[in-house]
């Protein structure tokens, strides 16, 4: 962990306080949090590959805000995350924010730098314990396997809001590139075929409509992230894979209803995936002798998922949560039977149902404890997009239990 902290990425964030102290400014503020969890996985390798019980659930974040002048605010957050198989330290966001239209009924601003994705209700705070409903977000919409293409992008965004008599509209138009880490390549290609992966710039549009009374919202968002992957070729391996392109057309619809003692959330994701290349072959074998491998290339593989979540506030600081969600890798083959016929791979690797229940207890404004259980059928949410080895995720029914303590300031 220390060696991660020493990495030069962190220096970037130190620039903010540096400038501020140099200027003797008091327009500097900090926030942050630390959280530690423990989880138990009954089967499969969703979380930690070594053990069923894992303490690899540490997240630390520190953020700074600095008012550069009366118009421009600089804001950055560095995050250390040790989550199951993945340990990473990254700049979560680092941007300048300038709101240049300020009227009674509408505002428009611009952001430049590394910006959090605002698609869906929880992408912008998917790692923030105090701002998400559970320790593990609903995998039907927020798959951890694709988190690099959902978290924050390097680019520009225009945002605004407008008040109407019957509600208010918030909108974001963004253009940027998702920086990727090695774990995206593992998620797309699988561990055996890791390699280089890169992303291209994409557009994002997000609109949220909020009722005048404030008790319900609906949002619709769209983005089209795109990745290019080149697997490492090991000539001694039994199978190798060619380079390829993967494109997503991602739509997320969200709805929330707020009552005094409960709230209800529904989200739906529709993701049209185009995959080019990634052909399998046996190294050192003439073309004519190559065996026939399952086809990877597709013009349109529609992944889709939804969940409904109901939360009840026993007290203001004691929240119960029940959630049910479904995810399908291929909407035209929901039960995976066609996939099984074509490839011989388990049908349950193409869908995933998740029934979860949890409790969140806010001991104080700073301390929070979460406890939750997930009952899964199927492994689609944890399977790499392109992978033919399901031997590590070979149980159709499995459970995940988890507890987490967080401190934020």
């Amino acid at each position, binding site marked *: 962990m220390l060696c991660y902290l020493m990495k030069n990425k962190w220096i970037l964030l130190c620039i903010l306080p540096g400038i501020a102290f140099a200027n003797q400014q008091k327009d500097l503020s900090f926030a942050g949090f630390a959280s530690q969890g423990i989880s138990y996985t009954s089967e499969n390798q969703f979380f930690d590959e070594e053990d069923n019980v894992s303490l690899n659930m540490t997240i630390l974040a520190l953020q700074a805000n600095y008012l550069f002048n009366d118009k421009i605010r600089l804001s950055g*957050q560095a995050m250390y995350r040790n989550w199951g198989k993945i340990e990473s330290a990254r700049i979560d966001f680092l941007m300048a924010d300038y709101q240049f239209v300020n009227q009674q009924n509408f505002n428009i601003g611009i952001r430049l730098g590394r910006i959090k994705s605002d698609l869906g209700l929880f992408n912008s705070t998917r790692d923030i314990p105090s701002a998400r409903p559970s320790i593990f977000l609903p995998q039907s919409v927020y798959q951890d396997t694709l988190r690099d293409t959902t978290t924050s992008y390097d680019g520009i965004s225009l945002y605004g809001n407008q008040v109407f008599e019957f509600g208010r509209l918030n909108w974001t138009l963004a253009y940027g590139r998702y920086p990727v880490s090695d774990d995206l390549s593992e998620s797309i290609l699988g561990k055996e075929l890791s390699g280089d992966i890169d992303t291209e710039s994409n557009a994002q549009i997000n609109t949220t409509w909020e009722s005048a009374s*404030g008790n319900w919202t609906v949002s619709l968002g769209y983005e089209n992230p795109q990745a290019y992957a080149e697997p490492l070729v090991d000539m001694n391996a039994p199978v190798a894979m060619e380079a390829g392109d993967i494109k997503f057309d991602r739509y997320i619809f969200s709805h929330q209803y707020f009552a005094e003692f409960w709230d209800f959330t529904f989200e739906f994701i529709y993701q049209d995936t185009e995959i080019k290349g990634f052909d399998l072959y046996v190294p050192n074998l003439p073309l004519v002798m190559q065996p026939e491998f399952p086809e990877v290339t597709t013009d349109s593989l529609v992944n889709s998922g939804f969940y409904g979540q109901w939360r009840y506030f026993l007290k203001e600081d004691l929240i119960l949560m029940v959630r049910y969600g479904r995810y399908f890798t291929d909407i035209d083959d929901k039960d995976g039977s066609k996939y099984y016929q074509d490839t011989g791979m388990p049908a349950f690797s193409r869908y995933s149902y998740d029934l979860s229940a949890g409790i969140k207890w806010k001991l104080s404004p700073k301390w929070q404890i979460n406890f939750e259980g997930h009952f899964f059928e199927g492994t689609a949410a944890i399977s790499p997009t392109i992978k033919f080895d399901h031997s590590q995720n070979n149980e159709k029914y499995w459970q995940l239990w988890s507890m987490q303590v967080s401190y934020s300031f």
Partner: protein
Amino acid sequence: MWGGKGLNLKYYTPQLITFLIFFFIIQPSYAIEVVVHDSVELSEISHQQVKSIYLGQQTHWPNGNLIKLFKLPSTHKTHHLFVKNTLGLYPYQFNRRWQKLVFSGFALKPSVAIDEQELLDLIAKTPGAIGYVENKIIMEGVRYVVLFDEK
């Protein structure tokens, strides 16, 4: 009490006066007052604009000056009244929205004053500041703005 000699109004006068005082004087003082620093060029403000400001959606005044946002602690009675009556939200909605705004970097979190007196003192010495109180105290440097509903 009610029997025999009929209703003795004299007997009930103190209670009646207390009731009238409560109804006409104390009751209106439960209303939330929106207060700004004297330099803010504003005499009235719409509910919706207060909401835009307190949801982190409007960061500058119409003349381009920075808005400095002040709030009372989340457990404070006045804060609850403000969130429920002025913003029209449940306190948990307000808290959750700010958790999201702060940790996504989309807005600067409001400064917290421990009570109404400290809030007024801070507003009086912070140009561009806005806050809310229940007890209207006239003091130098702060100005109360009239809340209105736009149609």
